[in-house]
């Protein structure tokens, strides 16, 4: 399966290879489409490809690291 997501990195994680580890440790293929990262903050829009189980495990780990994970189209719930 494929899933489009947006990662938002807190300052302390900007220099960590989170996306690399997502690929290596969880067997999720990552394909970055757009990004804006500097010394203090950053976001990356990417597509993930893998089994449903691997993507779920991978995203759970990414969240545990402190990265915010959102749908690429922003919040869907409106007032």
């Amino acid at each position, binding site marked *: 399966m494929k899933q489009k997501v947006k990662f938002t990195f807190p300052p302390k994680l900007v220099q960590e290879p989170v996306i690399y580890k997502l690929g290596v440790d969880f067997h999720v293929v990552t394909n970055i489409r*757009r990004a804006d990262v500097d010394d203090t*903050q950053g976001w990356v829009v990417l597509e993930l490809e893998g089994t449903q189980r691997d993507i779920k495990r991978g995203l759970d780990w990414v969240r545990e690291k402190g990265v915010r994970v*959102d749908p690429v*189209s*922003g*919040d*869907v719930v409106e007032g």
Partner: protein
Amino acid sequence: MAFATALRCRECSREYPLEPMNICEWCFGPCEVVYDYEAIRKQISRKSIEAGPLTVWRYRDLLPVGDGPVVDLHAGYTPLLKADNLGRMLGLDNLYLKNDCVNPTYSFKDRVVTVAATIARQMGFDTLACASTGNLAGAVAAHAAKAGMKAYVFIPADLEKVKVVGAAIYGPTVVAVNGSYDDVNRLCSEVADNYRWAFVNVNIRPYYAEGSKTLGYEVVEQLGWRAPDHAIVPVASGSLLTKVWKGMNEFKDLGLISEVKTRMHMVQPLGCSPVVTAHAEGVMSVKPVKPNTIAKSLAIGNPADGYYALKVLKESHGTATAVTDPEVIEGIHLLARTEGIFAETAAGVVISGLRKLAQSGAIGKHDLTVAYITGNGLKTQEVVEDSVKTWPVQPTLASFRHALAAHGHA
């Protein structure tokens, strides 16, 4: 005749046919509707608009729908009221309120949903869907009922029942999701990917959002074909502010008005103000937040159009203001007691934000100013329940006279 020609990515400018999609397949940027403005210019005039229906459909040439019937509950063409009493209190001589409380389901969401429902039917969908904590749910359910379409409305399981009634009455399937705000978002994105439904603010979003342009058109027309000096707009996803600006500028580009010198001012509740924060920090990247405010209709922590709203502020030399929850309530009271309009919490944000702008001198005394009031107060009565203070009396004239005297009214 339909003048929309394509969808275009706002980031990489790749174009796509007019189909149900919202994200560019290449860069995952958001898509927007493209029009043949040269053809529109030949067709449209002030006179042709003025001859149209007293609804958003008087601007049909500038909306992304094909020929044929529309799903119409009479959304739009709401009153633009001169607010002399409120203006006097704030030191503003030329203040107007765009009162969208009086739409068919009592909020501006009817504007976007009438467009979304029409395009959904034209694209062959039989189901409308949305995820909402209030206004959008009511608008989707009502328009689906009118269109004879099925409707699915997703809500957080802990949403107060009274807020669900305004949607449930129209007969949709109400899906109560047991999880956090983020969980509801995640599920609804997955549902939109997996079912052939018209999810109004997901796969139909580029069309849906265009309905908000009518709030720009109407104000210009109702002011006698001129753009205001200032517009105060509440920001949730940021779409409304960008579309009001787009609407006014389309009128200028089509030669219907000569100029747009409007300063666009965004207001957000402090408990959910990621776009205001980005503006204050001087960055264009909006950091998502967890909403914590009584202004639920503005509680979007990860706003899809935050970046584009910031761009509009730059282009228009606008400002960004956040107000606290107590100020939201003060704003609701102030509007009700000066102008006789009972509006929901988003309007409390607007009115308190407007007061700050007036006090700071950002808006001049004689400037032509329009504040957008986007939803009806009956939807968020709980936040102003404390305003109910009664005089208990016995059913006798003597008792009533006593109460009058006791309260200094004699």
